[in-house]
């Protein structure tokens, strides 16, 4: 194994230091032997000098016996492992190959194009960051290209590089290449493949694999190897939702109780408040223990041991999360299932479901439909046969804690095990909660709003007279660090001291209680405000003034909340402050994290904040004192007839 690096001979210590900092990239190769897949992999290994000399000698020997290149070195034989398949000339299982360059270590999941393709591809794709889809330049986009792309998108691979191979056999035609790219793009517009790239290759001769091809000067992009070395995969991980499925409880003596597991997503720091599912007991992180010393923070996919401040009951199968951001917890969910066994999936039969560190009996209640991997056509089906894919609803005998697979590969996936044979018979991906559900909740609201007038014998006028105020909700909206909570609390103090009945409702408080089940996706933010709007309305109906401090980044959602609370008693105060001021106030370091890519849905950095078009008041909190800000809000409430001063 020889890396092409002068450093090895010259300065091995410098070389080792360079290689300590490599990243790991896993990819899958999809295509058949006819597309030159084995040849391509052989090339990558051969050109990165990962084939040993003795292996090479053995291969050259075998090229004479089994090869298809007339006795010349056949790179395809590098990847053929088992004797059976060498004799049959087909690859029958997933094989893993390894090579590395100065920048990255690569793991290739090499899966066959023909036999058992769905099962093997799903296996290889389940851990891959990237997929290489091979197309033979002579044949263009085929049915198999479509099914490979579908499985890649189903298993949630974000980066796809389409390699158009055997360009030498179409005279290195740019026109042919572009035509294939266009055909492919047209087909995949129906799939969820966010990051697509195209590279023309002649793998047998190594053209555009590691070295630029002299025969395709029209291609200005990177070679395949260059691309694999540089494609950015850092943002693929979920660093937002902290999830630690407990794998093992380490209890060597009475003084130490460590909860061990691999962080499925998110970041954990010493001192953080955590919650244990399913007991919902809350505690704090006392230590993050490793043999090399305690850690201040840990993140996915590290394997850690956590010690908590309190004696909280927690065992294998439980999950440690954050109180403001908990996974869904139920025993019923929908999933897409890939069937891996010759005995078909039978709805109603009891299977074991292994999800994170839990193994629970359950059954598939309904097989909603199966999907034809070649046409994406959906059809009803009584069962799922080997290599078939279907959408199912599932009921387990107890709850699991999960996120949708699209959001979280670790907490959204499971395998299905046959209770008698112990075989792994299926693999499932939990599907996104129906977006229609949230929409429906808003709509149900509106109907209720209309019909809830006369549920009380105490009139609004009587309440106003009792409290000496006309109830209102003031929404303090703005980016993190604009002083929403600070000003809301100061206004609350001033009103209370003036004898008014008032209460602050803030986002963090809501998230630690009523909205524990919500995250920070667009959908969850919408649901957070919908529920908060209801509480504001109840407070107003009770005669109270409600001061609501929320980021509330969406104009349309704010409009819906206004509608819900009652436009005549809903005021919007938009708080602004310069970036420097906001960052200085951000003691939790959210901006820095968001800018580093660790907080994906953070308004102002990684998500949109829509400034209110018609705020009742705009306050620059960076340019005046809190007292001045409070005065302006009080003035607004007086102007609108809510209070008299």
């Amino acid at each position: 194994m020889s890396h092409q690096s002068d450093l090895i001979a010259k300065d091995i210590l410098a070389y080792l230091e360079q290689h300590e900092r490599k990243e790991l990239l896993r990819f899958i190769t999809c295509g058949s032997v006819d597309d030159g897949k084995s040849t391509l992999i052989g090339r990558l290994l051969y050109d990165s000098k990962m084939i040993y000399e003795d292996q090479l000698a053995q291969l050259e020997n075998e090229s004479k016996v089994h090869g298809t290149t007339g006795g010349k070195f056949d790179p395809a034989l590098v990847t053929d492992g088992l004797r059976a398949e060498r004799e049959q000339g087909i690859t029958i299982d997933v094989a893993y190959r390894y090579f590395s360059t100065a920048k990255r270590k690569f793991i290739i999941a090499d899966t066959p194009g023909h036999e058992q393709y769905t099962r093997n591809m799903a296996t290889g794709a389940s851990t891959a960051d990237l997929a290489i889809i091979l197309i033979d330049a002579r044949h263009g986009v085929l049915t198999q290209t479509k099914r490979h792309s579908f499985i890649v998108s189903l298993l949630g691979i974000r980066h796809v590089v389409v390699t158009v191979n055997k360009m030498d056999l179409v005279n290195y035609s740019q026109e042919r290449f572009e035509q294939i790219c266009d055909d492919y793009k047209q087909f995949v517009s129906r799939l969820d493949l966010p990051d697509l790239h195209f590279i023309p290759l002649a793998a047998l001769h190594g053209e555009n694999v590691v070295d630029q091809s002299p025969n395709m000067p029209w291609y200005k992009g990177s070679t395949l190897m260059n691309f694999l070395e540089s494609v950015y995969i850092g943002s693929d991980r979920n660093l937002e939702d902290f999830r630690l499925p407990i794998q093992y409880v380490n209890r060597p003596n009475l003084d130490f109780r460590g909860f061990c597991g691999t962080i499925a997503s998110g970041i954990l720091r010493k001192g953080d408040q955590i919650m244990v599912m399913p007991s919902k007991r809350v505690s704090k992180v006392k230590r993050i223990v490793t043999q090399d010393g305690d850690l201040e923070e840990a993140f996915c996919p590290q394997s850690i041991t956590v010690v908590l401040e309190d004696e909280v009951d927690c065992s294998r199968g439980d999950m440690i999360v954050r109180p403001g951001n908990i996974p869904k917890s139920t025993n019923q969910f929908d999933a897409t299932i890939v069937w891996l066994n010759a005995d078909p999936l039978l709805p109603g039969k009891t299977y074991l479901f292994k999800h994170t560190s839990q193994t629970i009996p359950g059954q598939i209640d309904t097989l909603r439909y199966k999907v034809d991997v070649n046409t994406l056509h959906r059809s009803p089906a009584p069962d799922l046969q080997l290599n078939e894919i279907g959408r199912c609803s599932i009921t387990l005998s107890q709850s699991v804690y999960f996120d949708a697979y699209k959001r979280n590969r670790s907490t959204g996936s499971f395998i299905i095990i046959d209770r008698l044979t112990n075989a792994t018979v299926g693999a499932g991906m939990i599907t996104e909660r129906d977006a229609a559900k949230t929409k429906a909740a808003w709509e149900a609201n509106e109907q209720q709003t209309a019909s809830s007038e006369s549920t009380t014998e105490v009139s609004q006028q009587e309440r106003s007279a009792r409290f000496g105020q006309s109830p209102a909700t003031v929404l303090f909206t703005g980016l993190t660090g604009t002083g929403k909570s600070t000003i809301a609390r100061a206004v609350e103090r001033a009103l209370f001291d003036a004898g008014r009945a008032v209460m602050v409702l803030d986002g963090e408080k809501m998230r630690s209680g009523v909205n524990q089940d919500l995250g920070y996706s667009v959908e969850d933010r919408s649901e957070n405000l919908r529920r908060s709007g209801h509480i504001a309305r109840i407070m107003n109906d009770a005669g109270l003034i409600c001061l609501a401090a929320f980021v509330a980044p969406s104009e349309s959602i704010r409009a819906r909340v206004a509608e819900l609370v009652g436009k005549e008693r809903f005021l919007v105060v938009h708080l602004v402050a310069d970036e420097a001021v906001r960052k200085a106030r951000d003691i939790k370091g959210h901006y820095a994290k968001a800018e580093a890519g660790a907080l994906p849905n953070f308004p102002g950095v990684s998500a949109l904040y829509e400034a209110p078009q018609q705020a009742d008041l705009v306050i620059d909190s960076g340019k005046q004192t809190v007292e001045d800000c409070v005065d302006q809000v009080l003035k607004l409430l007086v102007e609108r007839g809510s209070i008299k001063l």
Partner: protein
Amino acid sequence: MNSYNLTHLKQLEAESIHVIREVAAEFKKPVMLYSVGKDSAVMTHLALKAFYPAKPPFPFLHVDTTWKFREMIEFRDSYVKKELGIELLVNINQEGLKLGIDPFENSDKHTEVMKTDSLKSALTKYGFDAAFGGARRDEEKSRAKERVFSFRDKFHRWDPKNQRPELWNLYNCRVNPQESIRVFPLSNWTELDIWQYIYLENIPLPDLYLAKMRPVVVRNGALISPNDDRFKLREGEVIEHKMVRFRTLGCWPLTGAVESNATTLPEIIQEMLLTKTSERQGRVIDKDGGGAGMELKKMQGYF
């Protein structure tokens, strides 16, 4: 690279620890097979990390063929047993010993009886339902398709056509009585990863890996280093003293030395990167039975 990225070695470490803990949590009676070599050293280190501050909650098992290098046995007893305080089981096939198979004359038979049979009988004797091994997928072609959790029937046989699909990091740990799983936490490590990790983590190894003046004899094209008086010079053979080291450690009559001046870890890594012969080449057993020698051995229950 921002601070929330792991290096490839840290990621491999995390994945291996996950595998080791999963076995400890799910199986009734696991065991870690310990061969004294560098892969075993890394696996031991990972097991210590996985359960720190506790000791690994399973014993180690060394299958001693009675032909291991003296230095290996010394290292095993002083480091693993004494220093780490790990429960160490040693199995010697006493029945096989009576047959007195000469590994020089019949290397195949020796490996089958003293290693494969010995391992199988030890697993059966203690009733282990999971056994960790330090094999890596990059070692040899037939291992490229091996699972991390590799199912074995009650005869400890491996059936390449009947392996369980392995998705994500969800490992199926279920076995019926007498069946077992071989678990390979180092599956995704390469030889370079192993060496680099040993170097970074400062993991102790037997000196045999480092070059030293040692007595050697050329036999069947390999440099064999006589380790005790069971070695008999054949006609025409002479003992020479050379700077040599061992790239793999096994039974000394079957393990060829390589000439080398590498006396430090970085020098070993340098030498490995500059030479282009793969590590199992020094082992005589892989070449038996043509290109698929290891594959046949595995079906019979060899690791």
